């Protein structure tokens, strides 16, 4: 028994390093007064974890008694999460909100590490217990990070809404898990798949799947489980908003995709690369379609009349979750790899957009769309960069956003789901309206009050470029990304 535990340890070196970083940072935070030392240790830990992660490139197996999977799919998401987290840590160093925290600043950074641990566990879990624990670790850390600016009323309020909503959703998901346990007698995804394929009561299976999707939907902000998203995104510190909208969403999607692939695909059908045979009694494609259409449409429509940029970007990220779900519901390799490609492009453009909003609100103390009037003329660097990110978010060529949407719509068309592709394109057109409004305010309107020119330090300019260059670069040269995504769709699903 213990042999397996010893053998499994070598594969979770990245997670162990992150836990070690967390513990070391707690102690370092207590010893040193200068909080930048904690930041240095956190970045060191994340980079070290990245280094050890690269050794797991081509491994494809289950460890820890079939509870944890080390496969290319998990590898892709872990790389993604580490890149996102390192980016957010650098982002937070530049943020005035975080440096205003004074005594709590160190704790903020090591909570980001704890959040990363939770997200790592979410991407790799193949057992319902591990999935639940991973979701709860991520959620608990997110509740605390959202409420970090205790002096601001909006932050505490956002945090409270998040807690109540999150606890309720995880309670629902847990009930679904209990019904699945009753039907199949096991928590292991592979064993559940075999039991479902052998035949279980379809009504109970449907209800339990729907309840589990309440939990997943809450994590990815799908409609109708999205009600916490605008309030939490608006009230939290902006680095927390960014990491929630990019990394936490990615971890939630990876769990959803893994569960859908392992649990609902018929193990008795002949394995085909491009068309997975779904078990008959599970209407998973219908559920995902409804979620996707609702999410895209509502996200885009409500974003139209938002005037606070944080809230607007929150609704826009809800809409992007809808596009990502389009890739998932095709249930074949092409659709899944399209979702992965879209995620990478989404990382760069979304973090870039939030970065600009953060830097502007650092100097102008406002996230209102009216305060962006004339910004393009006064601070051209910010104006051009923000325009780039907005064009990418809409999905126009030659930016990365276009590449992501192209692959998603191509996967839909190849699966003969033309109507859904049309709905996706229409939604992109709707999103053009509210992105262009910002663009218009920046370049074509004069501001009412005298706003100063926003001077950026070299570090801030560099960080913006770090996200801007891939946004345009991936739009022009995306072959390596596509290959990486195609290779990463291999989810371990039994021999």
């Amino acid at each position, binding site marked *: 028994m213990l042999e397996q535990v010893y053998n499994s340890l070598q594969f979770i070196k990245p997670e162990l390093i992150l836990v070690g970083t967390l513990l070391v940072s707690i102690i370092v935070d207590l010893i040193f007064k200068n909080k930048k030392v904690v930041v240095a240790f956190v970045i060191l830990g994340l980079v070290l974890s990245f280094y050890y992660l690269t050794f797991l490139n081509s491994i494809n197996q289950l460890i820890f008694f079939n509870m944890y999977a080390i496969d290319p799919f998990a590898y892709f998401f872990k790389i993604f999460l580490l890149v996102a987290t390192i980016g957010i840590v650098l982002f937070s160093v530049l943020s005035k909100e975080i440096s205003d925290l004074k005594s709590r600043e160190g704790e903020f950074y090591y909570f980001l590490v704890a959040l990363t641990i939770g997200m790592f566990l979410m991407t790799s879990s193949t057992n319902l217990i591990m999935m*639940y624990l991973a979701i709860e670790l991520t959620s608990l850390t997110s509740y605390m990070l959202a409420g970090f600016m205790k002096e601001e009323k909006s932050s505490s309020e956002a945090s409270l809404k998040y807690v109540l909503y999150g606890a309720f959703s995880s309670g629902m998901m847990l009930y679904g898990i209990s019904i699945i346990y009753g039907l199949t007698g096991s928590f292991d995804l592979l064993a559940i798949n075999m039991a479902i394929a052998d035949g279980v009561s379809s009504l109970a299976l449907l209800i339990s799947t729907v309840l589990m999707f309440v939990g997943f939907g809450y994590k990815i902000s799908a409609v109708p489980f999205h009600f916490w998203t605008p309030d939490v995104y608006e009230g939290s510190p902006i680095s927390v908003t960014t990491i929630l909208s990019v990394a936490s969403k990615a971890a939630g999607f990876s769990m959803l995709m893994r569960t859908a692939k392992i649990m609902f695909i018929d193990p008795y059908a002949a394995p085909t690369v491009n068309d997975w045979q779904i078990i008959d009694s599970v209407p998973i494609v219908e559920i995902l379609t409804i979620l996707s259409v609702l999410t895209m449409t509502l996200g885009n429509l409500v974003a139209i009349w938002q005037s606070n940029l944080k809230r607007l970007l929150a609704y826009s990220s809800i809409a992007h979750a809808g596009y990502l779900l389009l890739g998932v519901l095709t249930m074949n390799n092409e659709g899944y790899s399209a979702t992965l490609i879209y995620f990478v492009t989404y990382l760069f453009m979304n973090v870039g957009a939030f970065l600009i909003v953060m830097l502007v609100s650092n100097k102008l103390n406002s996230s209102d769309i009216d305060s962006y009037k004339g910004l393009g003329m006064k601070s051209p660097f910010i104006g051009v960069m923000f325009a780039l990110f907005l064009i990418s978010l809409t999905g126009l060529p030659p930016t990365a956003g276009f590449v992501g949407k192209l692959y998603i719509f191509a996967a839909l068309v190849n699966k003969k789901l033309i109507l859904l592709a049309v709905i996706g394109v229409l939604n992109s057109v709707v999103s053009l309206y509210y992105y262009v409004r910002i663009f218009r305010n920046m370049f074509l309107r004069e501001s009412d009050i005298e706003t100063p020119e926003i001077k950026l330090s070299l570090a801030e300019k560099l960080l913006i470029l770090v996200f801007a260059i891939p946004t345009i670069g991936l739009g022009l040269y995306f072959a390596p990304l596509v290959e990486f995504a195609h290779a990463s769709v291999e989810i371990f699903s039994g021999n």
Partner: protein
Amino acid sequence: MIPLNYYLLFAAFLFSVGVVGVLIRRNAIIVFMCIELMLNSVNLTFIAFSAFMGNAIGQMFVFFVMTVAAAEAAVGLAIIIALFRNKKTINIDQINLLKW
């Protein structure tokens, strides 16, 4: 001998009572208590299945659910206390700075 269905129906009813509580109560602490009711009903379902299946895994999950419920209660109450210090109220209706 009480059959399995009695336990399951009872747990389902308790779960529904908890859900009603979460939806209709306005005080944040009472909403928390109702969430604890929901989690207790889930625990009861797990243990009922575990007993009638001869399978001990359900009981192991209940340990973890209890752990997480305790952690969540601690964090949730800390947030409620922080909010109360700011606003002097924990009535959800009056917590409406963030609107539509």
